[in-house]
């Protein structure tokens, strides 16, 4: 029981971390929270279901196509909705909230309220250290999530693009004086944030099928992870994501499964009470 819960916690934690990285990247650079983050996760799940199960594409290209489309959609959202609100954080909150409701209802209209599920990548189960057997699909999700997180870290820490991202999130004005086109960077990082939500979506949807409103708890958890880790901190996302995944699954196993998502809320309240800047956060953005 304990071992399985820890394992489930790790899988969920990696996905939470991935989803939270997308939020954190956008907050760090643009000081914008995308309330439609969870719906983009769901959108990618639906895309990969459409391409793989309905059109019959192989799993990998279907997933890549889904993430690419959500990335483009993210660029479009930034250009049409977010860019005109620069300097007024309130409107971006309102606009992305409305967008999330619009997407939920569009999903409901197109796909219906029923859960949809893209095909599994791998079948069967493996024996974990002789303790329990665990679904191969979940192991694959854990592995691919970890690889993607590592790739994001490489991108931010080692590349020229990453250097621009870090410079802009530290001091926007200074980055501009040094020739960074922050408008284009905003657009690109918003798209990248959406693509990270989409990546989490295509990885997890074969395990947890997508429904029109299933994105809400995912997005909320990602937001809690971002607050817990500290807004704009990438390491905070990884540590916070794993922590929350473990707490939720251990809590569900040993306290009450109906209250799985409440544990995250309790953590949020505790963080705001004790250390509002989060584990790795700067005192002020």
């Amino acid at each position, binding site marked *: 029981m304990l071992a399985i819960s820890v394992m489930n916690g790790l899988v969920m934690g990696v996905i939470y971390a991935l989803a939270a990285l997308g939020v954190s990247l956008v907050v760090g650079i643009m000081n914008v929270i995308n*309330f439609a983050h969870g719906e983009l996760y769901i959108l990618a799940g639906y895309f990969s279901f459409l391409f793989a199960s309905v059109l019959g594409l192989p799993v990998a290209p279907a997933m890549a196509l889904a993430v690419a489309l959500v990335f483009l959609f993210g660029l479009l959202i930034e250009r049409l909705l977010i860019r005109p609100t620069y300097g007024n954080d309130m409107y971006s909150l309102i606009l992305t909230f409305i967008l999330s*409701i619009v997407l939920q209802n569009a999903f409901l209209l197109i796909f219906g309220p029923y859960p949809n599920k893209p095909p599994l990548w791998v079948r069967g189960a493996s024996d974990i250290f002789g303790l329990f057997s665990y679904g191969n699909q979940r192991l694959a999700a854990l592995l691919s999530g970890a690889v993607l997180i590592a790739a994001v870290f490489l991108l931010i820490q080692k590349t020229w693009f990453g250097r621009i991202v870090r410079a802009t999130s530290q001091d926007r004005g200074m980055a501009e004086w040094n020739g960074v086109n922050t408008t284009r960077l905003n657009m690109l990082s918003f798209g990248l944030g959406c693509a990270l939500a989409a990546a989490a979506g295509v990885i997890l949807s074969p395990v947890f099928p997508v429904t029109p409103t299933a994105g809400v708890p995912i997005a909320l958890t990602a937001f809690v992870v971002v607050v817990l880790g500290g807004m704009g901190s990438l390491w905070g996302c990884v540590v916070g994501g794993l922590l929350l995944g473990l707490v939720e699954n251990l809590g569900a196993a040993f306290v009450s499964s109906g209250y799985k998502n409440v544990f995250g809320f309790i953590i949020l309240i505790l963080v705001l009470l004790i250390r509002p800047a989060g584990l790795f956060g700067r005192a002020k953005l």
Partner: protein
Amino acid sequence: MISSSKWIGPAVLAGMCLLPLPLGIYPQHVLIVSLFYVMMAASWNLLAGYTGQVSFGHAAMAGIGAYTSGILAAKAGVNPWVGVAAGTLLAALLGLGLGALCLKMGGIYLSLTTLAFSQILHIIIVNEYEVTRGTMGLQVPGLTAEYSKLTYYYILLAATVLVLFILYRMIHSNLGLSFRAVQNDETAARAVGVRVLHLRVLAFTVASAMAGFAGGLYGHYLLLITPEIPSLDLQFYVLAMTVIGGMGSFVGPIVGAFAINILAEKIRDYGEYHVLVFGLIALVVARFAPEGLTGVWRSLGRRRTP
């Protein structure tokens, strides 16, 4: 402007008193629901329109009011009016707590925490089936011994007038001036001695109390309280009414609430598209006319009389 606004209020009120008399049961119901939404949108406007705080937990506060009063009345036999007062108080206390907890960290935190709060409330209501009857809904007694739409209409009209009166007095006082100052330039307001944090927490507490009050009355009107009240859909409705009507304008949310609720009833005849339709309208309005319909109206008037 002052002489005309002196007469507009009483004239509209007199009209509102006479309005339901020639109407049937169903239009009366639509009007009662509209009044609930006027209270919700007008108090949400105090947050988003006047103090620059976006709360996604306003519907949840209405749910707190409705469920507090409903549970007290249905399980403990408490008088519904006492229950509504208790629900209002609890919503105010929760507003005070949430406001104090996250407002010092800045607006984004309030939006995140209120969204989480509304989601958690939803989970608790669905899970605590014995107390709340979950998604089946909790049957509660009415506010009066005899159930009549007309009586409820006048009760909600009186409540709406009370809420609007308090909001009007708040906005057109020194307090309202400080609200505006904070929204226009927080640093400058702080520099001239406005206590920004206190002000925001106060506005959040008052708005939460009003939502709890509106929700409590609404629950006793519906006689069945379901998790539909503290839902994101209702929250979206309140937000869309304010945005489309005109954020930061006193009349905006009132116009928005009536217009959208009545339109929603019409669209509902064609199927369950109304949320999607209003979502798209709200998106376009928030993007291209951030001051809403009343803002468009005002700028049209300005253009005609230069």
